[in-house]
């Protein structure tokens, strides 16, 4: 018998679990796709997908549900990573939202609903994807803590939290009826710290906005917003101030709050993350809608 082996570390186990999940989906779904939002969680998920099928490129496309309001740096990294991974990149923008000029400054919650929730549903229907990978983690938010790794959606993309399939061992039941789809979360069991450390150990490219730099900012409703392009409507007399900032999560730039920081390297970012006293999603306006049950309601409506 072989000598005793060193136990796997938590990151090795999380990595192996995620790769196993990704391969199961590809083996059992007809048209899988990876939702790619260009954030750090997407970066890790993409890396895991490449690792799962190496030396082949992952046998599915990347889908970016674009709100047209992402940071410029995000668009740049998106295009670079699609090229580097050898995967097809599909970019979808809800035509109705574009036509009506829906934007985060004038339309508030409607912006997220039209561009993201509706846009995602339209894109999945348009291409007929029956399985979509997402980078959500259970430690992010309370309703996500109870979601399965394989999460079923009705033909109208609804989520029924009371009627989830039991998920035993590492056996995933990917069977579904026509029109139904699955959202799959390979990094469900990762924490924010795990994601950072994995990026660090594997040298995974991420958007530079995660690192501190002097950037033009204004303060709105307690959020520190970055003026990323000239669509930002400044109030009379308002002048953007250069501050050393970085972002803990990335979304639409007018909805994403920055933190003042001097962390310019990954270890410094991780250090700051660990010593901080507020949670990661705190910079996001989206969770605060609809009282305490915000995300749960959004998910039932089809939000990722």
């Amino acid at each position, binding site marked *: *018998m*072989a000598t005793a*082996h060193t*136990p*796997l*570390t*938590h990151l*090795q186990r*999380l*990595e*192996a*679990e995620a790769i*196993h999940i990704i391969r*199961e989906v*590809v*083996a059992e779904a007809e048209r899988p796709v990876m939702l790619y939002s260009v954030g750090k969680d997407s970066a890790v998920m993409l*890396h895991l997908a490449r690792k*799962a*099928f*190496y*030396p*082949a490129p992952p046998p599915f496309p990347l889908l970016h549900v674009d709100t047209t309001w992402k940071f410029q740096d995000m668009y740049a990294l998106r295009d670079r990573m699609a090229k580097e991974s050898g995967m097809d990149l599909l970019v979808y923008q809800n035509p109705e939202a574009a036509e009506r000029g829906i934007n985060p400054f004038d339309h508030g919650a409607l912006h997220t609903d039209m561009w993201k929730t509706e846009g995602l549903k339209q894109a999945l229907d348009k291409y007929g994807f029956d399985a979509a990978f997402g980078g959500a983690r*259970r430690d992010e938010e*309370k309703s996500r*803590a*109870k979601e399965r790794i394989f999460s079923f959606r009705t033909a109208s993309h609804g989520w029924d*939290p009371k009627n*989830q*399939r*039991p*998920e*035993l*061992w590492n*056996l995933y*039941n990917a*069977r*579904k009826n026509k029109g139904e789809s699955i959202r799959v979360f390979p990094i*469900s*069991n990762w*924490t924010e*710290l795990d994601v950072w*450390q994995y990026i*660090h*150990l*594997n*040298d*995974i490219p991420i958007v530079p906005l995660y690192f501190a730099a002097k950037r033009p900012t204004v303060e709105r409703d307690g959020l520190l917003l970055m003026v990323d392009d000239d669509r930002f409507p400044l109030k009379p007399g308002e002048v953007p101030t250069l501050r050393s900032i970085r972002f803990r999560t990335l979304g639409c730039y007018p909805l994403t709050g920055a933190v003042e920081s001097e962390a310019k390297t990954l*270890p410094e970012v991780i*250090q700051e993350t*660990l*010593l*901080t*006293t*507020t*949670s990661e999603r*705190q910079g996001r306006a989206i969770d605060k809608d609809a009282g*305490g*049950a915000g995300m*749960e*309601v959004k998910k039932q409506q089809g939000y990722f």
Partner: protein
Amino acid sequence: MSEPIYVTDQLIADDIDAYLDTHQHKTMLRFITCGSVDDGKSTLIGRLLYDSKMIFEDQLDALHADSKKVGTQGQEIDFALLVDGLAAEREQGITIDVAYRFFNTEKRKFIVADCPGHEQYTRNMVTGASTADLAVILIDARKGVLVQTRRHSYLCHLIGIRNLVLAVNKMDLVDYDQATFDAIVADYAEFAKSIGIESFTALPISGFKGDNITALSANTPWYSGPTLVEHLETVEVNSARDAEKPFRLPVQWVNRPNLDFRGFAGLIASGSVKPGDEVRVLPSGKTSTVTRIVTMPSGPAGASATGGDGDLPEAVAGQSVTLCFADEIDCSRGNVIALADQPPQVADQFEATLVWLNDEALIPGRAYWLKLATQTVSATVQPPKYAINVNTLEHVAAKTLDLNAIGVAEVTTDKPLVFEPYGENRTLGGFVLIDKLTNATVAAGMLHFSLRRAQNVHWQALDISREAHAALKNQKPAVLWFTGLSGAGKSTIANLVEKKLHRMNRHTFLLDGDNVRHGLNKDLGFTEADRIENIRRVGEVAKLMADAGLIVITAFISPFRAEREMVRAMLPEGEFVEVFIDTPLADAEARDVKGLYKKARSGQLKNFTGIDSPYEAPINPEIRVDTTAMTPKEAAELIVARLLGDD
């Protein structure tokens, strides 16, 4: 308040690289907490998160506000609110689904599955337990060992959790009394022994006050440790044990980007593998040698999270890898790669424990999908040998298994499965059953052993093949499977079809529902289970006759889609011809040749199809006969023309 001893802020602040190095090398323990409704599970988990500083200020602010609004602890913090996630639960103050939580200490990362204690949610507990290394069984010190305690312990033991922690909670409410604690432990020990639990660790705690969670409590000077966290940090995890077992890798995916590369990808279920190892692919039994263990090179040299760059010198249980072989041998998804001289078993009949997870009860004899590792086969379950009363743990007679029921039954698969007893290998012994129509996961199962029948009854290879039989008769065998309501005209039309074929020198045989029930199936009644067995036997007979080269015609109501599909699966592609004799219920009832509808309507005849038992019409039958649009003679001509048109 106890000290947050585990996240060392000072180290993070002073030397982040040193901290990251420590964190990188942490192992992971997955555990579940179970107990009955008010035992304080959520409070304990909230406390663990709070003490390990996994709660941020904004969450804490929300917690303070919520505690005042809906909390059950007066003005004090209600930790349970941290973990009761779904809106419905917060209103009811109970946990209704498995929730996963995360925290770190200096030695380990932990994933906690918070499992509800209600009887109707046994399925959630089994779900949470299936991935756990350890279980914390909570007991309210004021109440002692309850029926729920026994049930949860039994389920944890059944799922194979070897590390059990008995956490006697709410010690603050019994004045930290040692005698109370000792009595509960003695009581539990007796029970544990009776169900075969070899050992457990008992601790006196208070989740609410924080006693003996992270630090030994001054309130229990009679208790010398360990604390709950110390214990969680040091117990052995499953994956460490799995690494020392024989090598098994269920193949998930064959990676073939070009003609020069062919790799077999999967998660190693047990053991370890090195280049040069001789391996065997099951069920085929073909052997080859491992040439490479491929993973993607990434990161700075030597720093990769999987401990290697590109090809690995060795891989162990729990790692996802891709193997390359020296020889081009057949190997595909569902196969298992094993060490050549220690292969797992292959069989198609088993004894298994089943935990039923669905509102719709088990139907013995019905075909379900069975998924085990990466193998998916069609399987049927015999009526249970017995069910287990989870409260008394007695064996009780059972004809089926309802939601949350546990029983032992024989399982038969349509193709051989590569397996190991669940006690030896969770991955190759644990399976789920999936309903073929709704796609719901209806049961979890654990294989005990293969039945001798399957091991000792080998398939006898015969020299005269089914092709030879058919060739001599100069025809293509087929099974014309008539289905439809009673009185639709199945027997009449089937009879005409056979006469016509006979005149055309075809070798045929007609199996009629009523006639078969006079002999082969005279022991069967009309319950759902008996009707399924009726169809299974007829299917097997029809298959033998088709093997003999005959054109078989069957006339049975065969009301359930699943059973018709079961027969279709028994036969080679294209030989099963489903003939739907489509008659509106009103027409069949008006005809009522045998007077059966009248009897059924008056309640003299139970389980009559169309009246008080459903008829599931075919979705895509090969032939559909609309009896309102043609005569039986025209129908017979249509069927014969369609059948021979294929010749």
